[in-house]
């Protein structure tokens, strides 16, 4: 395979995505946006898996399967999360994360 993009590029991208996701999770005030940040994290993981699989271990398919499963699980997670966020909206009339601090200390 000539002229391919080096593995490092994928890793850099995925790392950037990972930290972007974390940054987003820690700073966005909207619950939905936070959820999206989490998707970023999960996707960075997927990139990792796929890239590792493709570049380092082309003999097996573990990474590919793993990323598929992660996508599926992420979908399930998002579904439940959004259901709960809707519930939050019903109760708090807002999806601002800072409002959701009734319980503390």
């Amino acid at each position, binding site marked *: 395979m000539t002229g391919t993009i080096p593995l490092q590029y994928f890793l850099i991208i995925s790392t950037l995505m990972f930290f972007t996701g*974390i940054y987003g999770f820690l700073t966005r005030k909207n619950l939905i946006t936070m959820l999206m940040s989490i998707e970023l994290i999960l996707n960075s993981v997927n990139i990792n898996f796929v890239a590792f699989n493709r570049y380092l271990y082309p003999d097996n398919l573990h990474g590919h399967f793993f990323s598929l499963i992660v996508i599926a699980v992420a979908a399930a997670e998002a579904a439940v999360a959004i259901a709960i966020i809707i519930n939050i909206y019903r109760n708090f009339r807002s999806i601002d994360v800072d409002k959701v601090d009734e319980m503390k200390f």
Partner: protein
Amino acid sequence: MRHELLLTAIALILLVTDIMLKPSQKPRIIPVAMVLFSIHTIAGFFPAQEGILFGGMFRATPLISMMKNVLNVGVLIILLQSYTWLMKEENRDKMSEYFILMFSTLIGMYFMISSGDFLMFYLGLETATIPMAALAAYTHHQTKSAEAGVKLILSSALSSGILLFGLSLIYGSTGSIYFSDVALFYGTEPMQVLAFLFFFSGMAFKISLVPFHLWTADVYEGSPINVTSYFSVISKGAASFILVLILYKVFFQLIDVWQEVLYIISILTMVVGNLFALRQKNMKRFLAFSSIAQAGFILLGMIAGSQLGMTSVIYFVLVYIFSNLGAFGVVSAIEAATGKINMNDYDGLYITNPKLSLLMMLAMFSLAGIPPVAGFFGKFFLFTSAASAGYYWLVFIAVLNATISLYYYLMVVKAMFINKTETPIATFRSDGMTRAGLILAGLGIVVVGFWSQVYEFINSLSVGLLY
């Protein structure tokens, strides 16, 4: 595989039954679920086939089925204790969901414990977590419950994200996701340590170790009490089981690293958990923090990396299930009967409800590690395990923390036995199921310690590093 199949079948049966029942007949689901689950629990104790499935993704050993049985017992007690609460009007039309969600998470845990590779592990983990968020938000009309749900789902998503990132690095560095292969290729290179730490943070979140624990108290407080007790014993127990398994099996090369990690984290966990628990007035929150501190103790068992360590962890979880469910059972019974949840509501409880108070006292003593109840044995073996690896100072700090924890456990005892009040909780009588749950927990607290066969049985199944 029997555990998983049976439980899946039960969940399906319940689902179908629920569809067929008329709204007025809904409560019938409870006895059905109870009976089925009891059968399942008992069936779990019969010897099962050993071996591996799916090319090594799923493993069944006597040790693993023992772990599942321990969880089953806990869940059974929780189900029994939930009866009064479930029978409330507000829960009438979603009773079966309670069981189905709970069983789903339990199935997830089974798979997690049985996993032979990280993929199965991750699947199990998420199967266990996602329905749990739904359970936390079960009483959806309560803001607290909703808040608990969102806190749990978001935090756990973050933690699984980080864990997954760790897993991807593990895969990258070893080329496999099978435990046995990973163990072979794993070394102490920086990236591998990094990957391990990411993985560990994710697991620490599940066991709620400091500083990954902050969600715990809020979620515990917001969730319905029986769900809380489920979180605090079953979920935590399952996570501890798989952590100890993975540490011993996969990361044994990193033992020097993770022993230090556990050293630091366990001290932090015990201290912070205790400090927070000291000032809690809400019983649920109080038990939440106390369970954080307890998690710190569990690490003391793991740190040994030996058969003794494994045994002590499993045994402690068993003891802890009984003790904590004893405490939660009482809190739950009282909340169900009176709606009171604060510690000072318990003033003078002994005069009006002596049996409940006695059980609560036993549970508190057991949690604090006071003989002759089981908690003492559990703690003692954890400490023995840590000492066997030479961590004497850690043991010392841990026992000091146990002393501090005794302070707040005694505060509860004090409220019930010593404090005087004009308006104690009136005498009440719980229904049969709840009482059965309480008695089961009480029996466990008293018997499991003295009855050394329990420990010896677990020990005969346990193994050390690299089994």
